[in-house]
Protein backbone atom coordinates (compact mmCIF):
# COMPACT_ATOMS: atom_id res chain seq x y z
CA UNK A 1 0.00 0.00 0.00
CA UNK A 2 3.03 2.25 0.34
CA UNK A 3 3.09 2.30 -3.42
CA UNK A 4 -0.46 3.55 -3.44
CA UNK A 5 0.25 6.45 -1.14
CA UNK A 6 3.42 7.30 -3.00
CA UNK A 7 1.75 7.34 -6.38
CA UNK A 8 -1.15 9.35 -5.10
CA UNK A 9 1.30 11.88 -3.77
CA UNK A 10 2.97 12.01 -7.16
CA UNK A 11 -0.37 12.59 -8.86
CA UNK A 12 -1.20 15.41 -6.48
CA UNK A 13 2.22 16.92 -6.92
CA UNK A 14 1.89 16.77 -10.69
CA UNK A 15 -1.39 18.67 -10.62
CA UNK A 16 -0.05 21.19 -8.16
CA UNK A 17 3.08 21.82 -10.16
CA UNK A 18 1.13 22.12 -13.39
CA UNK A 19 -0.87 24.93 -11.82
CA UNK A 20 2.30 26.39 -10.38
CA UNK A 21 4.14 26.36 -13.65
CA UNK A 22 1.28 27.92 -15.52
CA UNK A 23 0.42 30.77 -13.22
CA UNK A 24 2.76 31.26 -10.33
CA UNK A 25 6.21 30.21 -11.48
CA UNK A 26 6.82 32.95 -14.05
CA UNK A 27 6.33 35.55 -11.37
CA UNK A 28 8.39 33.71 -8.79
CA UNK A 29 11.22 33.02 -11.16
CA UNK A 30 11.25 36.67 -12.03
CA UNK A 31 11.21 37.70 -8.41
CA UNK A 32 14.16 35.48 -7.67
CA UNK A 33 16.13 36.94 -10.52
CA UNK A 34 15.18 40.38 -9.37
CA UNK A 35 16.55 39.67 -5.91
CA UNK A 36 19.83 38.50 -7.36
CA UNK A 37 19.88 41.55 -9.54
CA UNK A 38 19.30 43.78 -6.57
CA UNK A 39 22.14 42.21 -4.63
CA UNK A 40 24.46 42.77 -7.55
CA UNK A 41 23.18 46.28 -7.80
CA UNK A 42 23.82 47.08 -4.17
CA UNK A 43 27.40 45.88 -4.56
CA UNK A 44 28.10 47.93 -7.65
CA UNK A 45 26.37 50.97 -6.19
CA UNK A 46 28.84 51.09 -3.37
CA UNK A 47 31.78 51.06 -5.75
CA UNK A 48 30.80 53.77 -8.10
CA UNK A 49 28.35 56.00 -6.34
CA UNK A 50 30.44 59.07 -7.06
CA UNK A 51 30.88 58.09 -10.69
CA UNK A 52 27.11 57.90 -10.81
CA UNK A 53 26.61 61.48 -9.83
CA UNK A 54 29.16 62.73 -12.28
CA UNK A 55 27.76 60.66 -15.07
CA UNK A 56 24.21 61.72 -14.57
CA UNK A 57 25.10 65.29 -15.23
CA UNK A 58 27.07 64.51 -18.33
CA UNK A 59 24.79 61.97 -19.88
CA UNK A 60 21.78 64.19 -20.18
CA UNK A 61 22.25 64.94 -23.87
CA UNK A 62 23.09 61.35 -24.67
CA UNK A 63 20.03 60.06 -22.97
CA UNK A 64 17.85 60.79 -25.92
CA UNK A 65 20.22 58.97 -28.25
CA UNK A 66 20.15 55.95 -25.98
CA UNK A 67 16.44 56.22 -25.87
CA UNK A 68 16.32 56.02 -22.12
CA UNK A 69 17.24 57.88 -19.03
CA UNK A 70 17.87 56.94 -15.46
CA UNK A 71 16.83 60.18 -13.92
CA UNK A 72 13.80 62.34 -14.28
CA UNK A 73 13.16 62.75 -17.91
CA UNK A 74 10.67 65.57 -17.70
CA UNK A 75 11.35 67.63 -14.62
CA UNK A 76 15.03 67.03 -14.39
CA UNK A 77 14.55 66.99 -10.63
CA UNK A 78 15.20 64.44 -7.95
CA UNK A 79 13.14 61.32 -7.47
CA UNK A 80 11.09 61.12 -4.28
CA UNK A 81 13.66 58.83 -2.64
CA UNK A 82 17.32 58.00 -3.34
CA UNK A 83 17.77 55.79 -6.40
CA UNK A 84 19.01 52.91 -4.32
CA UNK A 85 15.90 52.92 -2.19
CA UNK A 86 13.67 53.27 -5.22
CA UNK A 87 15.24 50.29 -6.94
CA UNK A 88 14.68 48.17 -3.89
CA UNK A 89 11.29 49.35 -2.69
CA UNK A 90 9.36 51.00 -5.50
CA UNK A 91 6.97 48.09 -5.84
CA UNK A 92 6.02 48.15 -2.18
CA UNK A 93 5.63 51.91 -2.23
CA UNK A 94 3.35 51.82 -5.25
CA UNK A 95 1.37 48.96 -3.78
CA UNK A 96 0.82 50.81 -0.52
CA UNK A 97 -0.16 53.97 -2.30
CA UNK A 98 -2.46 52.04 -4.60
CA UNK A 99 -4.65 50.88 -1.73
CA UNK A 100 -4.58 54.27 -0.04
CA UNK A 101 -5.89 55.88 -3.19
CA UNK A 102 -8.30 53.13 -4.12
CA UNK A 103 -9.98 52.72 -0.76
CA UNK A 104 -9.37 55.99 1.06
CA UNK A 105 -9.28 58.46 -1.77
CA UNK A 106 -5.86 59.76 -0.75
CA UNK A 107 -4.40 61.31 -3.86
CA UNK A 108 -1.09 62.78 -2.79
CA UNK A 109 1.68 62.69 -5.35
CA UNK A 110 4.14 60.76 -3.22
CA UNK A 111 4.60 57.28 -4.72
CA UNK A 112 1.61 57.65 -6.97
CA UNK A 113 2.01 55.75 -10.20
CA UNK A 114 0.71 58.72 -12.12
CA UNK A 115 3.55 60.80 -10.74
CA UNK A 116 6.13 58.11 -11.59
CA UNK A 117 4.90 58.09 -15.14
CA UNK A 118 4.83 61.83 -15.40
CA UNK A 119 8.46 62.30 -14.25
CA UNK A 120 9.99 59.28 -15.88
CA UNK A 121 8.30 59.64 -19.24
CA UNK A 122 10.64 59.18 -22.13
CA UNK A 123 10.25 60.70 -25.55
CA UNK A 124 10.72 58.51 -28.57
CA UNK A 125 12.07 59.36 -32.01
CA UNK A 126 8.92 61.16 -33.05
CA UNK A 127 9.16 63.43 -30.04
CA UNK A 128 6.13 61.94 -28.33
CA UNK A 129 6.15 60.05 -25.07
CA UNK A 130 6.56 56.34 -25.56
CA UNK A 131 4.28 53.65 -24.19
CA UNK A 132 5.20 50.56 -22.22
CA UNK A 133 4.88 48.55 -25.41
CA UNK A 134 8.14 50.22 -26.44
CA UNK A 135 11.14 48.39 -24.97
CA UNK A 136 12.79 51.73 -24.26
CA UNK A 137 10.10 52.59 -21.73
CA UNK A 138 11.65 53.50 -18.40
CA UNK A 139 10.05 50.63 -16.46
CA UNK A 140 10.98 48.02 -18.99
CA UNK A 141 14.66 48.74 -18.73
CA UNK A 142 14.94 46.59 -15.64
CA UNK A 143 11.75 44.58 -15.81
CA UNK A 144 12.66 42.97 -19.10
CA UNK A 145 16.11 42.12 -17.86
CA UNK A 146 14.88 40.41 -14.73
CA UNK A 147 11.83 38.92 -16.43
CA UNK A 148 9.24 40.41 -14.12
CA UNK A 149 6.03 41.11 -15.93
CA UNK A 150 4.63 44.56 -15.29
CA UNK A 151 0.94 44.20 -14.62
CA UNK A 152 0.31 47.94 -14.28
CA UNK A 153 -0.04 48.89 -17.90
CA UNK A 154 -2.81 46.51 -18.86
CA UNK A 155 -4.98 49.12 -17.18
CA UNK A 156 -2.91 52.20 -16.33
CA UNK A 157 -1.68 54.70 -18.85
CA UNK A 158 2.03 54.15 -19.33
CA UNK A 159 2.78 57.69 -20.46
CA UNK A 160 1.56 61.16 -19.55
CA UNK A 161 -1.72 61.99 -21.14
CA UNK A 162 -1.61 62.81 -24.82
CA UNK A 163 -4.03 65.58 -25.63
CA UNK A 164 -5.69 64.23 -28.72
CA UNK A 165 -6.31 60.55 -28.40
CA UNK A 166 -7.34 58.57 -31.39
CA UNK A 167 -8.25 54.94 -31.04
CA UNK A 168 -8.94 53.67 -27.57
CA UNK A 169 -9.58 50.20 -28.63
CA UNK A 170 -7.14 48.56 -30.88
CA UNK A 171 -8.29 45.08 -31.74
CA UNK A 172 -4.90 44.30 -33.23
CA UNK A 173 -3.03 44.99 -30.08
CA UNK A 174 -2.55 41.81 -28.16
CA UNK A 175 -2.03 41.84 -24.44
CA UNK A 176 1.30 40.77 -23.09
CA UNK A 177 1.00 37.12 -22.40
CA UNK A 178 2.16 36.06 -18.94
CA UNK A 179 4.24 33.52 -20.77
CA UNK A 180 6.12 36.03 -22.83
CA UNK A 181 8.28 37.78 -20.32
CA UNK A 182 11.30 39.20 -22.03
CA UNK A 183 10.80 40.83 -25.35
CA UNK A 184 13.69 42.74 -26.80
CA UNK A 185 16.96 41.74 -25.25
CA UNK A 186 19.17 44.16 -27.10
CA UNK A 187 17.15 47.24 -26.26
CA UNK A 188 16.96 45.98 -22.73
CA UNK A 189 20.69 45.75 -22.38
CA UNK A 190 21.12 49.31 -23.61
CA UNK A 191 18.47 50.61 -21.31
CA UNK A 192 19.85 48.71 -18.37
CA UNK A 193 23.39 49.92 -18.94
CA UNK A 194 22.27 53.45 -18.86
CA UNK A 195 20.13 52.86 -15.78
CA UNK A 196 23.09 51.37 -13.98
CA UNK A 197 24.93 54.62 -14.07
CA UNK A 198 25.99 55.67 -17.49
CA UNK A 199 28.84 53.18 -17.86
CA UNK A 200 28.41 53.16 -21.57
CA UNK A 201 28.93 56.88 -21.69
CA UNK A 202 31.91 56.78 -19.43
CA UNK A 203 33.67 54.38 -21.72
CA UNK A 204 33.00 56.57 -24.66
Amino acid at each position, binding site marked *: *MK*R*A*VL*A*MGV*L*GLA*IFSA*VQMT*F*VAPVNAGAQQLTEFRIAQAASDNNKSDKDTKASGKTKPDAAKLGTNHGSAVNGGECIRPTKEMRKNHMDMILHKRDETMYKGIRTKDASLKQCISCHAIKGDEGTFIKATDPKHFCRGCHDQVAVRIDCFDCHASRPEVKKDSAHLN*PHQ*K*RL*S*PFALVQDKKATATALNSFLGGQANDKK
Partner: protein
Amino acid sequence: MARIQFQTFRDHDNKFILIGALIALLVGIGALSALYMEHNGHIVTGMNNQIVWGMPHVFAIFLIVAASGALNIASISSVFNKKAYKPYARFSGLLAICLLIGGLLVLVLDLGRPDRLIVAMTTYNFKSIFAWNIILYNGFIAIVIVYLWTMFQKNLNGYTKYAGFAAFIWRLLLTMGTGSIFGFLVAREAYDSAIYAPLFIISSFVYGLAFTVLFLAMLEWTTGKNFMPKDIVRRFRGLFIVFIGGVLFFTLILHLANLYASQHHGVEEFLLVNGGNFPTIFWGGQIILGSLLPLAILASSSFGLSRRGLVLASILFLLGGIAQIYFILIGGQSYPLNLFPGMEVTQSGFSDGAIGHYSATMPEIMLGIGGLSLALLMTGIAVKVLPFLPKPWADEA
Protein backbone atom coordinates in the same frame (compact mmCIF):
# COMPACT_ATOMS: atom_id res chain seq x y z
CA MET B 1 -17.61 -12.07 3.44
CA ALA B 2 -14.67 -12.45 1.17
CA ARG B 3 -12.37 -9.46 0.99
CA ILE B 4 -12.81 -7.49 -2.21
CA GLN B 5 -9.84 -7.76 -4.51
CA PHE B 6 -8.64 -4.57 -6.15
CA GLN B 7 -6.17 -4.29 -8.98
CA THR B 8 -4.69 -1.86 -11.41
CA PHE B 9 -6.39 -1.84 -14.76
CA ARG B 10 -4.80 -4.33 -17.12
CA ASP B 11 -5.47 -6.83 -19.92
CA HIS B 12 -7.00 -4.19 -22.11
CA ASP B 13 -6.52 -4.08 -25.86
CA ASN B 14 -5.28 -1.20 -27.99
CA LYS B 15 -8.67 0.45 -28.03
CA PHE B 16 -7.96 1.74 -24.54
CA ILE B 17 -4.73 3.38 -25.67
CA LEU B 18 -6.45 4.74 -28.77
CA ILE B 19 -9.23 6.29 -26.72
CA GLY B 20 -6.61 7.70 -24.39
CA ALA B 21 -4.71 9.25 -27.29
CA LEU B 22 -7.87 10.76 -28.72
CA ILE B 23 -8.79 12.24 -25.38
CA ALA B 24 -5.26 13.57 -24.89
CA LEU B 25 -5.60 15.28 -28.25
CA LEU B 26 -8.80 16.95 -27.06
CA VAL B 27 -7.02 18.07 -23.92
CA GLY B 28 -4.34 19.63 -26.11
CA ILE B 29 -6.90 21.45 -28.24
CA GLY B 30 -8.58 22.64 -25.06
CA ALA B 31 -5.29 24.01 -23.77
CA LEU B 32 -4.65 25.85 -27.03
CA SER B 33 -8.15 27.28 -26.93
CA ALA B 34 -7.56 28.59 -23.43
CA LEU B 35 -4.32 30.21 -24.52
CA TYR B 36 -6.04 31.76 -27.51
CA MET B 37 -8.84 33.16 -25.37
CA GLU B 38 -6.39 34.45 -22.80
CA HIS B 39 -4.31 36.13 -25.48
CA ASN B 40 -7.12 37.87 -27.35
CA GLY B 41 -9.57 38.48 -24.57
CA HIS B 42 -13.17 37.40 -24.43
CA ILE B 43 -13.92 39.14 -27.69
CA VAL B 44 -13.16 35.83 -29.43
CA THR B 45 -15.90 34.10 -27.50
CA GLY B 46 -19.63 34.45 -27.90
CA MET B 47 -19.94 35.78 -24.37
CA ASN B 48 -20.89 39.43 -24.00
CA ASN B 49 -22.18 42.00 -21.56
CA GLN B 50 -25.57 40.35 -21.28
CA ILE B 51 -24.70 36.67 -21.54
CA VAL B 52 -21.72 36.98 -19.27
CA TRP B 53 -21.34 33.29 -18.63
CA GLY B 54 -21.28 30.96 -21.59
CA MET B 55 -20.19 27.55 -22.76
CA PRO B 56 -17.15 27.22 -20.46
CA HIS B 57 -19.44 27.70 -17.49
CA VAL B 58 -21.93 25.17 -18.82
CA PHE B 59 -19.16 22.59 -18.90
CA ALA B 60 -17.57 23.71 -15.66
CA ILE B 61 -20.81 23.59 -13.67
CA PHE B 62 -21.79 20.31 -15.32
CA LEU B 63 -18.46 18.72 -14.38
CA ILE B 64 -18.45 20.11 -10.85
CA VAL B 65 -21.97 18.90 -10.21
CA ALA B 66 -21.14 15.54 -11.76
CA ALA B 67 -18.04 15.31 -9.55
CA SER B 68 -20.02 15.57 -6.36
CA GLY B 69 -22.47 13.03 -7.73
CA ALA B 70 -19.72 10.61 -8.71
CA LEU B 71 -18.80 10.30 -5.05
CA ASN B 72 -22.27 9.00 -4.37
CA ILE B 73 -21.37 5.35 -4.96
CA ALA B 74 -18.64 5.56 -2.35
CA SER B 75 -21.01 7.28 0.07
CA ILE B 76 -23.62 4.57 -0.36
CA SER B 77 -21.03 1.96 0.50
CA SER B 78 -19.34 3.70 3.45
CA VAL B 79 -22.05 5.85 4.96
CA PHE B 80 -25.08 3.70 4.27
CA ASN B 81 -23.07 0.50 4.48
CA LYS B 82 -24.36 -1.14 1.31
CA LYS B 83 -21.72 -3.77 0.63
CA ALA B 84 -22.69 -4.30 -2.99
CA TYR B 85 -21.22 -0.89 -3.89
CA LYS B 86 -17.98 -1.39 -2.01
CA PRO B 87 -16.00 -2.61 -5.03
CA TYR B 88 -16.65 0.74 -6.73
CA ALA B 89 -15.92 2.96 -3.73
CA ARG B 90 -12.30 3.72 -4.64
CA PHE B 91 -13.10 4.38 -8.27
CA SER B 92 -15.98 6.59 -7.26
CA GLY B 93 -13.67 8.77 -5.17
CA LEU B 94 -11.14 8.97 -7.98
CA LEU B 95 -13.71 9.93 -10.59
CA ALA B 96 -15.07 12.61 -8.25
CA ILE B 97 -11.66 14.24 -7.85
CA CYS B 98 -10.86 14.08 -11.56
CA LEU B 99 -14.20 15.51 -12.70
CA LEU B 100 -13.87 18.31 -10.19
CA ILE B 101 -10.37 19.22 -11.34
CA GLY B 102 -11.52 19.17 -14.96
CA GLY B 103 -14.44 21.45 -14.18
CA LEU B 104 -12.41 23.84 -12.06
CA LEU B 105 -9.76 24.15 -14.72
CA VAL B 106 -12.36 25.23 -17.27
CA LEU B 107 -13.80 27.72 -14.81
CA VAL B 108 -10.41 29.16 -13.97
CA LEU B 109 -9.18 29.37 -17.54
CA ASP B 110 -12.26 31.30 -18.54
CA LEU B 111 -11.57 34.06 -16.03
CA GLY B 112 -10.80 37.47 -17.45
CA ARG B 113 -7.52 37.36 -15.56
CA PRO B 114 -6.55 33.70 -15.12
CA ASP B 115 -3.07 34.86 -14.21
CA ARG B 116 -4.53 36.20 -10.97
CA LEU B 117 -5.68 32.80 -9.77
CA ILE B 118 -3.46 33.32 -6.76
CA VAL B 119 -5.63 36.30 -5.80
CA ALA B 120 -8.72 34.14 -5.84
CA MET B 121 -6.96 31.66 -3.57
CA THR B 122 -5.75 34.22 -1.06
CA THR B 123 -8.32 37.02 -0.95
CA TYR B 124 -11.79 36.10 0.19
CA ASN B 125 -15.02 37.97 0.58
CA PHE B 126 -16.94 35.69 2.86
CA LYS B 127 -20.29 37.11 1.94
CA SER B 128 -19.82 35.69 -1.54
CA ILE B 129 -21.02 32.17 -2.22
CA PHE B 130 -18.32 32.06 -4.89
CA ALA B 131 -15.61 32.55 -2.29
CA TRP B 132 -17.15 29.76 -0.21
CA ASN B 133 -17.21 27.57 -3.26
CA ILE B 134 -13.49 28.03 -3.78
CA ILE B 135 -13.00 26.69 -0.26
CA LEU B 136 -15.59 23.94 -0.76
CA TYR B 137 -13.96 22.79 -4.00
CA ASN B 138 -10.43 22.70 -2.59
CA GLY B 139 -11.65 21.11 0.61
CA PHE B 140 -13.52 18.47 -1.36
CA ILE B 141 -10.36 17.38 -3.11
CA ALA B 142 -8.48 17.22 0.20
CA ILE B 143 -11.20 15.29 2.03
CA VAL B 144 -11.69 12.78 -0.76
CA ILE B 145 -7.94 12.19 -0.92
CA VAL B 146 -7.98 11.39 2.81
CA TYR B 147 -11.05 9.23 2.27
CA LEU B 148 -9.27 7.31 -0.49
CA TRP B 149 -6.24 6.92 1.73
CA THR B 150 -8.30 5.28 4.45
CA MET B 151 -9.67 2.92 1.84
CA PHE B 152 -6.27 2.06 0.40
CA GLN B 153 -4.28 1.56 3.57
CA LYS B 154 -5.36 -1.55 5.46
CA ASN B 155 -4.65 -0.32 8.97
CA LEU B 156 -6.71 2.81 8.30
CA ASN B 157 -9.76 0.95 6.99
CA GLY B 158 -11.49 1.48 10.31
CA TYR B 159 -11.60 5.21 9.63
CA THR B 160 -13.16 4.88 6.20
CA LYS B 161 -16.60 5.25 7.65
CA TYR B 162 -15.80 8.57 9.29
CA ALA B 163 -13.89 9.94 6.33
CA GLY B 164 -16.74 8.79 4.11
CA PHE B 165 -19.25 10.55 6.30
CA ALA B 166 -17.23 13.78 6.23
CA ALA B 167 -16.92 13.54 2.46
CA PHE B 168 -20.64 12.91 2.13
CA ILE B 169 -21.59 15.99 4.15
CA TRP B 170 -18.97 18.05 2.32
CA ARG B 171 -20.23 17.02 -1.07
CA LEU B 172 -23.78 17.98 -0.16
CA LEU B 173 -22.52 21.40 0.90
CA LEU B 174 -20.51 21.69 -2.29
CA THR B 175 -23.44 21.00 -4.59
CA MET B 176 -25.63 23.25 -2.52
CA GLY B 177 -23.03 25.98 -2.90
CA THR B 178 -22.89 25.46 -6.64
CA GLY B 179 -26.67 25.61 -6.92
CA SER B 180 -26.74 28.70 -4.75
CA ILE B 181 -24.63 30.59 -7.29
CA PHE B 182 -27.97 30.91 -9.05
CA GLY B 183 -30.11 30.88 -5.98
CA PHE B 184 -28.45 34.02 -4.65
CA LEU B 185 -29.05 36.25 -7.66
CA VAL B 186 -31.84 38.57 -6.64
CA ALA B 187 -31.97 40.52 -9.84
CA ARG B 188 -32.49 37.76 -12.40
CA GLU B 189 -36.02 36.49 -12.58
CA ALA B 190 -35.09 33.02 -13.78
CA TYR B 191 -32.82 32.51 -10.76
CA ASP B 192 -33.28 33.82 -7.24
CA SER B 193 -34.80 30.60 -5.93
CA ALA B 194 -33.62 28.45 -3.03
CA ILE B 195 -34.77 25.37 -4.90
CA TYR B 196 -31.64 25.47 -7.06
CA ALA B 197 -29.65 23.97 -4.17
CA PRO B 198 -31.64 20.70 -3.87
CA LEU B 199 -32.19 20.61 -7.64
CA PHE B 200 -28.44 20.60 -8.19
CA ILE B 201 -27.93 17.93 -5.53
CA ILE B 202 -30.41 15.54 -7.09
CA SER B 203 -29.10 16.31 -10.58
CA SER B 204 -25.58 15.54 -9.41
CA PHE B 205 -26.64 11.99 -8.53
CA VAL B 206 -27.75 11.42 -12.11
CA TYR B 207 -24.70 12.93 -13.81
CA GLY B 208 -22.20 11.27 -11.49
CA LEU B 209 -23.75 7.84 -11.85
CA ALA B 210 -23.95 8.23 -15.62
CA PHE B 211 -20.23 9.03 -15.80
CA THR B 212 -19.47 6.02 -13.61
CA VAL B 213 -21.52 3.65 -15.75
CA LEU B 214 -20.01 4.90 -18.98
CA PHE B 215 -16.45 4.63 -17.71
CA LEU B 216 -17.06 1.09 -16.48
CA ALA B 217 -18.67 0.22 -19.80
CA MET B 218 -15.60 1.54 -21.59
CA LEU B 219 -13.40 -0.67 -19.43
CA GLU B 220 -15.55 -3.66 -20.31
CA TRP B 221 -15.43 -2.81 -23.97
CA THR B 222 -11.63 -2.59 -24.04
CA THR B 223 -11.02 -5.75 -22.00
CA GLY B 224 -14.00 -7.94 -22.76
CA LYS B 225 -14.26 -8.56 -19.02
CA ASN B 226 -17.09 -8.08 -16.63
CA PHE B 227 -16.95 -4.96 -14.46
CA MET B 228 -20.68 -4.65 -13.85
CA PRO B 229 -22.30 -7.87 -12.72
CA LYS B 230 -26.03 -8.27 -13.24
CA ASP B 231 -26.78 -7.43 -9.66
CA ILE B 232 -25.06 -4.06 -9.92
CA VAL B 233 -26.71 -3.26 -13.27
CA ARG B 234 -30.03 -3.81 -11.56
CA ARG B 235 -29.06 -1.57 -8.66
CA PHE B 236 -27.75 1.21 -10.90
CA ARG B 237 -30.98 1.08 -12.84
CA GLY B 238 -32.98 1.48 -9.65
CA LEU B 239 -30.85 4.44 -8.55
CA PHE B 240 -31.23 6.13 -11.92
CA ILE B 241 -35.01 5.84 -11.80
CA VAL B 242 -35.19 7.36 -8.32
CA PHE B 243 -32.72 10.16 -9.11
CA ILE B 244 -34.21 11.28 -12.41
CA GLY B 245 -37.61 11.21 -10.78
CA GLY B 246 -36.22 13.63 -8.21
CA VAL B 247 -34.81 15.93 -10.90
CA LEU B 248 -38.16 16.02 -12.68
CA PHE B 249 -39.93 16.71 -9.41
CA PHE B 250 -37.72 19.68 -8.46
CA THR B 251 -37.83 21.06 -12.00
CA LEU B 252 -41.60 20.91 -11.89
CA ILE B 253 -41.74 22.69 -8.53
CA LEU B 254 -39.30 25.36 -9.74
CA HIS B 255 -41.46 26.27 -12.70
CA LEU B 256 -44.76 25.88 -10.90
CA ALA B 257 -43.62 28.25 -8.17
CA ASN B 258 -42.59 30.77 -10.79
CA LEU B 259 -45.82 30.38 -12.73
CA TYR B 260 -47.86 31.07 -9.64
CA ALA B 261 -46.53 34.63 -9.41
CA SER B 262 -47.84 36.67 -12.29
CA GLN B 263 -44.71 38.85 -12.26
CA HIS B 264 -42.75 35.82 -13.46
CA HIS B 265 -45.11 34.90 -16.28
CA GLY B 266 -42.95 36.74 -18.77
CA VAL B 267 -39.79 34.83 -18.03
CA GLU B 268 -41.57 31.49 -17.82
CA GLU B 269 -43.31 32.09 -21.11
CA PHE B 270 -39.96 32.96 -22.62
CA LEU B 271 -38.19 29.88 -21.29
CA LEU B 272 -40.94 27.33 -21.79
CA VAL B 273 -42.95 28.55 -24.77
CA ASN B 274 -41.60 31.17 -27.12
CA GLY B 275 -37.99 31.99 -26.24
CA GLY B 276 -36.25 30.89 -29.43
CA ASN B 277 -34.20 27.74 -28.85
CA PHE B 278 -34.74 27.52 -25.16
CA PRO B 279 -38.15 25.79 -25.14
CA THR B 280 -36.71 23.23 -27.56
CA ILE B 281 -33.66 22.72 -25.39
CA PHE B 282 -35.83 22.32 -22.32
CA TRP B 283 -38.65 20.15 -23.64
CA GLY B 284 -36.74 18.31 -26.32
CA GLY B 285 -33.31 18.18 -24.69
CA GLN B 286 -33.76 17.95 -20.98
CA ILE B 287 -37.24 16.53 -20.59
CA ILE B 288 -37.82 14.16 -23.51
CA LEU B 289 -34.33 13.14 -24.63
CA GLY B 290 -32.61 13.47 -21.28
CA SER B 291 -35.27 12.26 -18.87
CA LEU B 292 -38.36 10.57 -20.29
CA LEU B 293 -36.67 8.55 -23.02
CA PRO B 294 -33.98 7.05 -20.74
CA LEU B 295 -36.65 6.54 -18.11
CA ALA B 296 -38.69 4.57 -20.63
CA ILE B 297 -35.64 2.52 -21.56
CA LEU B 298 -34.89 1.70 -17.93
CA ALA B 299 -38.53 0.94 -17.23
CA SER B 300 -38.57 -1.81 -19.81
CA SER B 301 -37.99 -5.05 -17.94
CA SER B 302 -35.80 -6.59 -20.63
CA PHE B 303 -33.79 -3.81 -22.29
CA GLY B 304 -33.72 -1.74 -19.13
CA LEU B 305 -32.03 -4.54 -17.22
CA SER B 306 -29.41 -5.09 -19.89
CA ARG B 307 -26.00 -3.49 -19.95
CA ARG B 308 -26.80 -1.87 -23.28
CA GLY B 309 -29.94 -0.31 -21.94
CA LEU B 310 -28.07 1.09 -18.96
CA VAL B 311 -25.29 2.50 -21.15
CA LEU B 312 -27.71 4.07 -23.60
CA ALA B 313 -29.69 5.60 -20.75
CA SER B 314 -26.47 6.99 -19.23
CA ILE B 315 -25.50 8.66 -22.50
CA LEU B 316 -28.95 10.21 -22.72
CA PHE B 317 -28.77 11.36 -19.10
CA LEU B 318 -25.49 13.15 -19.76
CA LEU B 319 -26.81 14.86 -22.90
CA GLY B 320 -29.90 15.83 -20.96
CA GLY B 321 -27.69 17.16 -18.20
CA ILE B 322 -25.76 19.41 -20.58
CA ALA B 323 -29.09 20.61 -21.96
CA GLN B 324 -30.35 21.25 -18.43
CA ILE B 325 -27.35 23.35 -17.40
CA TYR B 326 -27.34 25.20 -20.73
CA PHE B 327 -31.02 25.95 -20.31
CA ILE B 328 -30.60 27.20 -16.76
CA LEU B 329 -27.46 29.20 -17.44
CA ILE B 330 -27.91 30.70 -20.89
CA GLY B 331 -31.70 30.76 -20.87
CA GLY B 332 -31.83 32.50 -17.54
CA GLN B 333 -29.37 35.17 -18.66
CA SER B 334 -31.06 35.74 -22.00
CA TYR B 335 -34.21 37.10 -20.48
CA PRO B 336 -33.71 40.84 -19.99
CA LEU B 337 -33.50 42.42 -16.57
CA ASN B 338 -36.67 44.05 -15.43
CA LEU B 339 -35.39 47.58 -14.81
CA PHE B 340 -38.79 49.25 -14.70
CA PRO B 341 -41.49 46.82 -13.63
CA GLY B 342 -44.64 47.49 -15.61
CA MET B 343 -42.88 49.53 -18.28
CA GLU B 344 -41.34 48.52 -21.55
CA VAL B 345 -37.99 49.72 -22.81
CA THR B 346 -38.39 51.30 -26.23
CA GLN B 347 -34.82 52.49 -26.76
CA SER B 348 -31.50 51.87 -25.11
CA GLY B 349 -27.83 52.33 -25.74
CA PHE B 350 -27.01 49.09 -23.97
CA SER B 351 -29.59 46.57 -25.23
CA ASP B 352 -31.77 46.95 -22.17
CA GLY B 353 -35.04 45.13 -22.42
CA ALA B 354 -33.79 43.06 -25.34
CA ILE B 355 -33.45 39.31 -25.42
CA GLY B 356 -29.80 38.37 -25.07
CA HIS B 357 -28.01 36.84 -27.97
CA TYR B 358 -25.40 34.19 -27.54
CA SER B 359 -23.74 31.81 -29.92
CA ALA B 360 -20.80 29.89 -28.57
CA THR B 361 -17.58 30.04 -30.56
CA MET B 362 -15.24 27.13 -31.18
CA PRO B 363 -12.53 28.07 -28.65
CA GLU B 364 -14.93 28.20 -25.74
CA ILE B 365 -16.60 24.93 -26.69
CA MET B 366 -13.20 23.29 -27.07
CA LEU B 367 -12.14 24.67 -23.70
CA GLY B 368 -15.15 22.99 -22.12
CA ILE B 369 -14.58 19.71 -23.94
CA GLY B 370 -10.90 19.96 -23.01
CA GLY B 371 -11.82 20.08 -19.33
CA LEU B 372 -14.09 17.07 -19.68
CA SER B 373 -11.36 15.23 -21.57
CA LEU B 374 -8.78 16.06 -18.93
CA ALA B 375 -11.03 14.61 -16.25
CA LEU B 376 -11.37 11.37 -18.20
CA LEU B 377 -7.69 11.25 -19.10
CA MET B 378 -6.66 11.66 -15.48
CA THR B 379 -9.08 8.94 -14.43
CA GLY B 380 -7.75 6.63 -17.15
CA ILE B 381 -4.14 7.16 -16.11
CA ALA B 382 -4.92 6.79 -12.41
CA VAL B 383 -6.64 3.43 -12.79
CA LYS B 384 -3.58 2.18 -14.65
CA VAL B 385 -1.24 3.29 -11.90
CA LEU B 386 -3.13 2.37 -8.74
CA PRO B 387 -5.56 -0.36 -7.76
CA PHE B 388 -8.72 1.71 -7.91
CA LEU B 389 -10.76 -0.91 -9.71
CA PRO B 390 -12.14 -4.21 -8.48
CA LYS B 391 -11.00 -7.44 -10.09
CA PRO B 392 -13.39 -8.19 -12.93
CA TRP B 393 -16.15 -10.59 -12.07
CA ALA B 394 -16.34 -14.01 -13.63
CA ASP B 395 -18.58 -14.00 -16.68
CA GLU B 396 -22.19 -14.66 -15.91
CA ALA B 397 -24.42 -16.82 -17.96
